């Protein structure tokens, strides 16, 4: 099969030009989507049941697990509260800033 070098180079060029923050946003949205989907499967919860627990629509949950969703902190907090598992953690621990120095 012919390999299209030109298409791959253009694909790579766009990836290389993507701002780091946007790359992270995409990666995190898919990682969170996979994490929610795995948790629902392991707990044998349907999207409909989970939607009811969180107080949202089934369509919203479908968007969450579909990847590419821009989760708000409010949504992540609701999901964490309902599932009893923390979706996000901040850094590697708690940091406090004192007089310009960051202490861990």
């Amino acid at each position, binding site marked *: 099969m012919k390999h*299209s070098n030109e298409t791959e180079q253009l694909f790579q060029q*766009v990836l290389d030009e*993507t701002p780091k923050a946007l790359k992270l946003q995409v*990666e995190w949205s898919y990682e969170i989507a996979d994490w929610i989907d795995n948790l629902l499967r392991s707990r044998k919860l349907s999207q409909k049941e989970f939607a009811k627990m969180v107080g949202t629509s089934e369509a919203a949950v479908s968007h969450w697990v579909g990847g*590419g969703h821009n989760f708000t902190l409010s949504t992540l907090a609701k999901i964490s509260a309902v599932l009893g598992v923390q979706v996000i953690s901040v850094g590697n621990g708690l940091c406090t800033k004192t007089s310009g120095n960051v202490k861990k």
Partner: protein
Amino acid sequence: MTKATIQSVRQTENAGLFTICFEGDSFTEFQKFILKGHENATLQPDLQKILNAVQHMMNAMGFLERYFRPEGKMRDRVTALPIQSSKLRLYCLRLSDSVLIVGNGGPKATKTYEEDPELNGYVIQLQKLDDLLRLAEAKGEITIETATLSGVDDKQFDI
């Protein structure tokens, strides 16, 4: 009717990405889609999101069904890769969790793709290719394997 070939774009351990090239065209369909977004400042962030999503899938879980929105008809494998809050659509043929053929796409300004002749055309192209691939699969000429397609080497499809 135009003759088209399937060309590979990128391969990882988990997934294979392919596109279509029509006879006489200088660009593949995926190239045309990328150039459309790349040259438009408004569409560029959405294009970057879509391509980074594709790359993430190739490195992680593959082309899982839940990542894609079914388009076309119930019987075909035509899907769209939308990104939330974006109108940009990339139309694809999701043959398995590890094989994706990407076509063309563009910004969706109408409620349904059928109302937009350009987008409708891209979906119809993929529907036709899907029919031909199914036929070839049934005859045993083409096999969908992990991250690759066998038997399409020099095969031309009348789309």
